[in-house]
């Protein structure tokens, strides 16, 4: 009797889970690529964990809270490591629709990945696309920050150079200006020739030549 039951179970198992079965998914793991030296060996215990994770994911789906580990069937495990799996209903006669399994796996992908220390690339569910994480986006793009820094430095340097250039030019202008002021003062001074200012010479209409000395003191005494 027991033999018959076992035979039936394996027969049903084989019927429901085989490569390219209805509602079956192929899974591929690349443990050595991900973990290198710390890679673990894939054995039946790891398979049990996998079935547990899938059952856990299915329990999160409404109406499927009663999924047990025994409902998840694995088959065709290769050395790669790759295998196929299906999830059956409580009666173990039919497999659950692929869409439900797919959405369940997608929702809990992160948990499944981290249970095996793998990621989306090294634990592949063929035919189940993963939602890719967006690249880390800083609120302000980095290039604007660096640009701001460089531009500020350049503008400040330009301003400094221009200002120092203006100041230097003003200093240069004041230098020769000092000399010119003295000359101007000279020009404003009334030219005096022999003690007699030249300017009033023109006001007498040329009748009296004030150029000649009139003061007696200047004449040599006889």
């Amino acid at each position: 009797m027991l033999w018959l039951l076992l035979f039936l179970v394996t027969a049903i198992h084989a019927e429901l889970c085989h490569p390219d079965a209805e509602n079956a998914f192929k899974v591929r793991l690349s443990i050595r690529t991900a973990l290198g030296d710390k890679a673990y060996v894939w054995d039946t215990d790891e398979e049990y964990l996998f079935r547990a994770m899938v059952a856990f994911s299915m329990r999160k789906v409404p109406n499927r809270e009663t999924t047990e580990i025994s409902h998840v069937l694995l088959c065709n495990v290769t050395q790669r490591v790759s295998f196929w799996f299906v999830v059956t209903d409580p009666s173990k006669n039919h497999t659950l629709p692929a869409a439900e399994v797919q959405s369940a796996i997608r929702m809990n992908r992160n948990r499944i990945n981290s249970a095996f220390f793998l990621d989306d690339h090294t634990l592949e569910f063929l035919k189940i696309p993963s939602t890719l994480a967006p690249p880390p986006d800083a609120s302000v793009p980095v290039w604007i920050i660096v640009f701001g820094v460089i531009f500020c430095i350049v503008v400040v340097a330009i301003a400094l150079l221009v200002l120092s250039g203006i100041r230097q030019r003003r200093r240069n202008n004041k230098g020769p200006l000092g000399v010119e002021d003295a000359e101007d003062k000279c020009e404003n001074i009334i030219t005096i020739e022999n003690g007699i200012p030249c300017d009033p010479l023109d006001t007498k209409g040329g009748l009296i030549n004030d150029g000649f000395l009139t003061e007696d003191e200047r004449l040599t005494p006889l």
Partner: protein
Amino acid sequence: MAQASGMDPLVDMEDERPKWDNKLQYLLSCIGFAVGLGNIWRFPYLCQTYGGGAFLIPYFIALVFEGIPLFYIELAIGQRLRRGSIGVWRTISPYLGGLGLGCFSVSFLISLYYNTVLLWVLWFFLNSFQYPLPWSTCPLDLNRTGFVQECQSSGTVSYFWYRQTLNITPDINNTGTIQWKLFLCLVACWATVYLCIIRGIESTGKAIYFTALFPYVVLTIFLVRGLTLPGATEGLTYLFTPNMKFLQNPRVWLDAATQIFFSLSLAFGGHIAFASYNPPRNNCEKDAVTIALVNSMTSVYASITIFSIMGFKATNDYWRCLDRNILSLTNEFDFPELSISRDEYPEVLMYLNATQADRLAQLPLKTCHLEDFLDKSASGPGLAFIVFTEAVLHMPGASVWSVLFFGMLFTLGLSSMFGNMESVITPLFDMGILPRSIPKEGMTAICFTLQSGSYWLEIFDSFAASLNLIIFAFLEVVGVIYVYGMKRFCDDIEWMTGRRPSLYWQVTWKVVSPMLLFSIFLSYIILLSQTPPSYKAWNPQYEHFPSREEKLYPGWVQVTCILLSFLPSLWVPSVALAHLLYQHRQRWKDTHPESGLKPQESRSC
């Protein structure tokens, strides 16, 4: 000594002319002007395409017979006549005044678009300060299940360059809008250039210490790093192994001569301007030979660095190709992970081909040959912004290398810009047009920040510079040797350097260089006329995307190309004609004095 006494008043008047602080500043400025982006991204490409080490032969022959003689002439006349390009040629002969104007206008056009390349470099520099580098991943598409389609087909680096940086349009007619990010970088670039030339050679002389020497430091760092990377030796041996067959191809000689010509930045007027600030008694012969040799050595040094990094990149790509194939095999036949090493791959493939050929045929396996990846060469911006950025992604510490590389390119371009701006500004100052207070730069470079700007830049690069500069260089040699007079020139040089030019100089000036230039000019014209000018457009809708679509230039663009190629050269005949007419009028006035005595003449009696 008649010339000496005749020219001495020139020397006396120029006591106010700015001077270099020391000889080193002058040498570094000339070296910085000559050593530019072309040394990094043009010379290695030519070396690679024309048989590796064999290319050095035509290159050095061109250097000896064309580069150094022309360079010596420019330095000598600049130092002797102590003027920018316009003044120098007007002094040599008023009929040749147009030559100076032509050099001036070409320098102006070039400085417009050269700054655009600088702004691209600056953009990449700014974006290198993050990890991971922004061109390492594709952006996600709208429902976050995959990457943007354009990026997936073209590759992350090309996508970053063409879409996220340039936002390029598929056609040159489609100008698009101004890219504000590029516009900001343009403002920053002009501000930096302005900062460095604000006081003329006083400020450039200080800035040049950094901008001329920093590239050499970075090149050395990259050389050391590059040689320690896996695959560097393969790259070096493959790319430097001389293949003498290429020397029979005349294109090699033409490209070598052209490369020397543009690499030394001849006929821009920049070296004339730099030399004009020298003391009159300075050994410009030694300067010319030194600077030209340093420029060529820099090209070779840079190509060693570039080749080692390209070798690394090719090896990396080859390994990834192999790994992809191995993964396909492993997944299909369910072999244990990592069971096939790269060396075992050919045997495994053969075995599978013998046993399970049908399953094997369905797999997307690509043939991987290291030589194919080594042969993928690129020149110009493509090398810097696509190939090198991808190579940097795979080096540990990618951000640091990226910052160093683009910083080096920026300083290289900046020091070349100094020379360009000097050749534009010095003649303007000499003619008294610009006051010495604040130089002004045209913001006409805005048009290059449009979405179609990259296509316009290619046009300016191909057409504004090449033909005009060759014509000007030819006229320079002919003008100095035949119009100014070989004897007079040699006497001037003897006065300046203390030695008469040897037979080598005289022969090259009189015969070899003009002939070489003339043949380059002819070959250019022939090549241009043979192929209709076309451009490669980046069109995501193209069926063979990511290959670039080859399109012909529309009519109005072709007209612009022709105008760019010839308008600067037209200065020469028009000024000569104008001077001829002026002389005619003067002579007519002299022979017909009663037609009008000038009032001053009568008062002077």
